[in-house]
């Protein structure tokens, strides 16, 4: 079906042993140092977490169908939205693309046999499992009701199970730090001779920028969560105004991490999209360098925007102005990327496949979510929208719309590389359209609700908001069906999908130059990359028939 132009050299063809079947015992998986196996295990765990967080999301939407009580008490509602947030943010979105696809692809893309510290990589997987178990244990104990932000002094005084959640997130944070550290060392020291900085795949750049944020921001979060835990246990009063502490200090330290965390979620997605627009339109990336520098620009500016979460906290007018302007800078770097992607797609040879459908969804969500982001960065407008559904819709557009679209695009695009099978393409495109439509139907009503004054985190609301809430819940159920469909046909494809060639997309990406699924040590000899990873304008380039 497709010309095998980027297949591995025939001289080394031998009965293909892949990383999946080189060893088959469970023990060999649990003790593996192979980045590909660790990436696949992360993928499985993350999909489970997405499912868990999604169940809570649907429960919330069902509760909001009617103005009064629908299916749960106010207390249960508070616990449900807390666990929805905690699970989605820390156990799914932050590790989603870096820990699964980053782990699987980054060494392949830089021509290394593994990451720089394989044992550390396995440790980071187990730390993630430990942290997730602690959070789920809190859930079994009744759950926390603080919201995923753990705002003090409520989080230090509520009788719900906050402690295991705090410590669980702390442990997951360690996992993130180790993964980021590993990627930075790998990118710096393990690149094959041909892979110079300016010939690195754009996905690797995205992961590299993400890793820098992870490593620099997460320790601060870790310490502040420990302090909150300490305050709960010993009552030390660091953040409790009744004991002389300062709750705003908590917010500053928390958002110093948690705002850059948004870029931890979005930058890898941007890397995926940068990678896919080239492969799906068969064109060179428009301005590779601008995409790279805007990645680093977002990683840098992201550290100076946290105050925009605190516009109404009573910080100085000067501070509000500074944070407002700095927050808008992020839009400039994002716009550079969007123009580069659209310019790459322009007059490209485009076939609508499932990954491309998600990429187009991503571009729509990042533009729409980004523009509403500029709107809420304007301090005067934020006075009106603060803590309403407008903000909820805005960050869901960015964090879920964009990051999750990229996750699904990556899942479909690299599925043949990871498992050596293809999924049913027509079905994939159909479900992708369902999901993009479901998102729009879920969150556009929430923008309207927020603008009308519907506050977030409320289980009850005045009757005039009901029609929009019903519309939002309808969209959410479409999303639920869409995700279920993806799960079903991808699991089916694992066994029954058509066998994929080494390079089914006829991509120029380096990861496709080895067999699918790759052998245990990726390459049998140092791979040579005479062309760049996004170069489609050289003679003899493979193309999809």
């Amino acid at each position, binding site marked *: 079906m497709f010309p095998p132009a980027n297949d591995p050299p025939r001289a080394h063809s031998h009965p293909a042993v892949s990383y999946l079947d080189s060893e088959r015992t469970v023990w060999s998986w649990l003790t593996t140092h192979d980045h590909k196996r660790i990436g696949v295990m992360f993928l499985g765990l993350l999909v489970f977490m997405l499912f868990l967080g999604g169940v809570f999301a649907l429960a919330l939407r069902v509760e909001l169908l009617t103005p009064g009580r629908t299916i749960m008490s106010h207390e249960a509602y508070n616990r449900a939205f807390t666990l929805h947030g905690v699970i989605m943010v820390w156990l799914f979105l932050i590790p989603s693309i870096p820990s699964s696809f980053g782990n699987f692809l980054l060494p392949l893309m830089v021509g290394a046999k*593994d990451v720089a510290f394989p044992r550390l990589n396995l440790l980071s997987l187990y730390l993630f499992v430990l942290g997730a178990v602690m959070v789920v244990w809190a859930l079994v104990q009744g759950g926390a009701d603080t919201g995923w932000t753990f705002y003090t002094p409520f989080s230090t005084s509520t009788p719900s199970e906050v402690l295991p959640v705090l410590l669980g997130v702390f442990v997951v944070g360690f996992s993130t730090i180790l993964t980021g550290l590993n990627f*930075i060392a790998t990118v710096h*020291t393990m690149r094959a001779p041909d892979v110079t900085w300016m010939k690195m795949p754009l996905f690797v750049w995205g992961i590299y920028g993400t890793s820098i944020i992870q490593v620099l921001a997460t*320790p*601060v979060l870790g310490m502040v969560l420990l302090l909150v835990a300490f305050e709960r246990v*010993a009552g030390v*009063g660091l953040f409790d105004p009744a*004991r002389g502490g300062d709750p705003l200090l908590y917010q500053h*330290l928390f958002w110093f991490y948690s705002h850059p965390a948004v870029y931890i979620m979005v930058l890898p997605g941007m890397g995926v999209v940068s990678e896919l627009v080239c492969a799906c339109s068969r064109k060179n990336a428009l301005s590779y360098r601008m995409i790279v520098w805007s990645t680093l620009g977002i990683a840098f500016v992201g550290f100076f925007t946290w105050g925009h979460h605190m516009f109404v906290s009573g910080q100085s007018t000067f501070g509000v102005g500074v944070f407002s302007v700095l927050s808008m800078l992020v839009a400039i770097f994002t716009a550079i990327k969007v123009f580069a992607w659209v310019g790459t797609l322009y007059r490209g040879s485009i076939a609508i496949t499932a990954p491309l459908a998600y990429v187009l969804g991503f571009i729509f969500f990042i533009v729409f979510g980004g523009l509403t982001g500029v709107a809420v960065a304007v301090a005067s407008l934020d006075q009106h929208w603060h803590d309403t559904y407008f903000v909820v819709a805005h960050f869901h557009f960015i964090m879920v719309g964009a990051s999750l679209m990229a996750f699904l695009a990556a899942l479909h695009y690299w599925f043949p590389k990871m498992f050596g099978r293809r999924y049913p393409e027509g079905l994939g495109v159909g479900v992708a359209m369902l999901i993009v439509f479901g998102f729009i139907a879920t969150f556009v009503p929430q923008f309207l609700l927020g603008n009308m004054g519907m506050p977030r985190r409320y289980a009850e609301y005045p009757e005039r908001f009901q029609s929009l809430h019903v519309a939002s819940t309808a969209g959410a159920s479409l999303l639920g069906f869409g995700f279920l469909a993806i799960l079903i046909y991808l699991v089916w494809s694992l066994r029954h999908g058509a066998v994929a060639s080494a390079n089914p997309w006829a991509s120029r990406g380096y990861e496709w130059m080895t067999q699918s699924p790759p052998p245990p040590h990726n390459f049998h000899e140092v791979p040579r990359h005479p062309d760049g990873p996004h170069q489609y304008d050289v003679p003899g380039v493979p193309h999809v028939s």
Partner: protein
Amino acid sequence: MSLEPASPPVVPQASHFGSDAAREQAAHVGMWVFLATEVLLFAALFTAYAVYRVDYPETFRAAREHMKVGIGTANTYLLVTSSICVAFAVWSVRQERTGLATFLLLCAVVLGLGFLTLKGVEYAAHVREGALPGRWYALEEFPRPGASLYFTLYFVMTGVHALHVLVGVGVLSVLTVQTAWGKYSGRYHTPLELGGMYWHLVDVIWLFVWPLLYLV
């Protein structure tokens, strides 16, 4: 249980194409990045200290009088000396003088243990006086909110630091044994160097904690 057919052998050790030099470089990059995360971990505490010092300047100054400056200063000397020992140990391994290196590392471990012992004595004194933070705070002579926060920060900052010292002593002990066995030489001493870097960081952090809590 390997089901591998006859194919080019997969050498478990050959996880990278890179040379030993590349691997050593990776180890160094990794350690530097890790040290950066450690600095940021403490940065949150230093920020908290700065905020509450601005909020309660008088109380912080008064509560500082309560510190055992003698013990703190002695500890500074112990830690700096042990850091110097480690630096010289790395140097002597490079010179192939393993015996000297083992002795110097042993000195560093003993000095580190000395630090922890003195810290323990100091903690015991504070606990007796009722300077424990939160609900156990019982120092009558200082106004409650500010002073309680001061002692909270004291215990958290020195506690987290002492934890690092404990880990460092563990790392140095392993390195001492390995050096004694002759694992390191002028050609290969990366773990020793990295362990040394960690110990220097522990030292450097104390050099910020000590003046803030005992002297200013």
